[in-house]
């Protein structure tokens, strides 16, 4: 299906301003998100990373400027981009039903939902939890479910907001391998992360935000080794390099 439709990407943000509660949270962001390389969004707390992702996903509308995909966002009733939130939202249903719910909304035939959902759960390594209530899972398992729910929808663009924040190393590894698999399957990954090690492992390029502006955009190696902007340099000094 996506083959016939015009490509979704690039996603273009032009002079995007977002204001809320009397505060300017994004202050003139212009960006082009191309298909292919894994894009990381980094920056200090409160720099507007989550707001940026929400604007890309259409959960927020810019106060000024434009956010636009080059192709249609829906194909056959199915949204072509998906988002995984920092705090996963678990429906009061079973693990499996959390995935099939998304498939139902995407217009997938009822006869196919369980099979597709089962595959996604297996991919995320939580197939054995399919019949458990989602809300009693551990934090890492919930995040894997959130990824499986997004994966089942076969998005062309996946937006991830700190998917491994507050997770232990084992859970982090599991999540990272799912993200890597999605990348290899051709999904464009845009991910917010704080973790420098993760940035090395999972990133190709970094968009560095500071105070609601793009301070720097560079390949991961370049930005993490020799940042050109003072903002990124200050951020790297503060972060523990081995974390």
């Amino acid at each position, binding site marked *: 299906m996506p083959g016939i439709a015009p490509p979704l990407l690039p996603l273009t943000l032009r002079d995007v301003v977002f204001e809320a509660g009397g505060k300017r949270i994004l202050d003139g962001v212009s960006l082009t998100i191309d298909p292919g390389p894994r894009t990381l969004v980094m920056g200090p707390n409160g720099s507007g990373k989550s707001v940026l992702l929400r604007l890309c*996903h*259409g*959960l927020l509308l810019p106060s000024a400027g434009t956010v636009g995909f080059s192709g249609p966002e*829906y194909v056959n009733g199915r*949204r072509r981009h*998906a*988002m995984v*939130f920092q705090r996963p*939202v*678990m*429906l*009061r*249903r079973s693990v499996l039903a959390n995935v099939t*719910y*998304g498939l139902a*909304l*995407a217009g997938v035939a009822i006869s196919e939902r369980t099979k597709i959902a089962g595959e996604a759960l297996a991919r995320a390594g939580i197939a054995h939890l399919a019949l458990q*209530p*989602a*809300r*009693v899972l551990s934090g890492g398992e919930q995040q894997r479910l959130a990824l499986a729910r997004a994966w089942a929808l076969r998005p062309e663009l996946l937006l991830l907001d700190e998917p491994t924040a507050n997770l232990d190393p084992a859970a982090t590894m599991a999540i990272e391998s799912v993200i890597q698999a999605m990348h290899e399957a051709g999904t464009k990954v845009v991910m917010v992360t704080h973790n420098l090690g993760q940035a090395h492992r999972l990133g190709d390029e970094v968009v560095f935000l500071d105070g609601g502006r793009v301070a720097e955009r560079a390949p991961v190696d370049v930005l993490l080794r020799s940042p050109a902007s003072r903002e990124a340099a200050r951020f790297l000094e503060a972060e523990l390099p081995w974390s």
Partner: protein
Amino acid sequence: MGDFAAASRAAVELLASGDPKLLEIVALSLQVSLSAALIASVIGLPLGAALAVSRFPGRRTLVVVTNALMGLPPVVVGLVVYLLLSRAGPLGELGLLFTPQAMVIAQSILVLPIVVALTRQAAEDAWAEYRDLLHSLGAAPLRSAVTLLWDIRHSLLTTVLAGFGRAAAEVGAVMIVGGNIDGVTRVMTTAIALETSKGDLPLALGLGTVLISVVVAVNAVAYLLREAAMRRYG
């Protein structure tokens, strides 16, 4: 104390013997209060859910008013419904005063704010949690509302039972609009009031025991359902 012991013994005998008069009163009580809880739920559940997810000027005021109305004094509700249904009142033509239907109407009004307020609270909490995800997955407003109500169905059942408990235990409204007519509109609470004033303590105590059992059972069921739901769905 001797009075109480004797009356208790008589009450137990009355209950054990399945006294038809007592059973009739219990049955009417349950019928009236369950009907009221049902009607209030049919109206109140969608209203509460709509109030939870909508944003309009005056919404906060409406929320505060709904919460305040949970404490409506039953006698005042009874008085207002009496005035509406009395022969000279706007709905006098219907001839409903001193019938079980009048009691159902009064108790429905009493229970409605409870259902609306508790539903709004539960739906609002769930909505705060679900909103981003439902938007992300592309759920239309109606679909979102249905998802929300379905996912909090256990809280809603508790809400309905709370409404029923309130109705079954009140005396002021049913007394005024029902008139406590023997065999027609006499329910547990009005019978207890009457029998106590007449000095027939065994019947009053027997009915009191049944009433407490019903209220305790309803609360226990509500509690257990919630517990089970929490365990299953978190």
